[in-house]
């Protein structure tokens, strides 16, 4: 069952503009959410995370927003750069599950010059 959903398989954004990647989840027991970036034939690279007790976390150009009532989170990248082009995965976990990550299917971001 798909507990973490990324409904947009792809997104194209111009360099310098904002990229917004969305993620929805169904399991209200998730208490920690993470975003990973992945290039082909490489492992996922951790970007940013947020605990369920917060609604926003910022790290440089990356900001993650969490709306618990809507079971929705988003990753904002401002400004977008061509090097940001990759597949972005949303993941969620429960502290009492051995931290097993549930991944979405990913959104492929293309930042064009």
């Amino acid at each position, binding site marked *: 069952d798909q507990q973490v959903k990324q409904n947009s398989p792809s997104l194209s954004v111009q360099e310098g503009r904002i990229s917004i990647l969305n993620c929805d989840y169904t399991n209200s027991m998730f208490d*920690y959410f*993470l975003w*990973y970036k992945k290039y082909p*034939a*490489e*492992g*996922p*690279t*951790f970007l940013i*995370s947020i605990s369920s007790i917060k609604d926003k976390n910022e790290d440089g150009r990356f900001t993650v927003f969490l709306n618990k009532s809507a079971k929705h989170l988003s990753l904002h990248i401002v400004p977008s750069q061509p090097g940001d082009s990759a597949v972005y*995965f949303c*993941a969620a*976990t429960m*502290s009492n*599950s*051995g*931290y*097993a*990550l*549930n*991944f*979405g*299917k*990913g959104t492929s971001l293309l930042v064009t010059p």
Partner: protein
Amino acid sequence: EPEVTQTPSHQVTQMGQEVILRCVPISNHLYFYWYRQILGQKVEFLVSFYNNEISEKSEIFDDQFSVERPDGSNFTLKIRSTKLEDSAMYFCASSRRETQYFGPGTRLLVL
């Protein structure tokens, strides 16, 4: 910066053969994991390992799979009798708590 390493990067095997995938987690991490990604699909959790025992496993992690931390540094995934559907990228990860850091993966091809 410390990173998770995995060997081999690629492995080709015949159906029914045993394979062992190796990982060296980040040294001060406490939790260790295996995930896999079948081509075109999402990354799937297989197993987590803490304090020298399995702490969580998915339905995929059946009796054909086992994990071991044979010494203080390595973490291995063994598939006893490989099937065609085991062909995938296998990722090892480690963490101190929630935030997991992934290795580059092993591409397993079962013929």
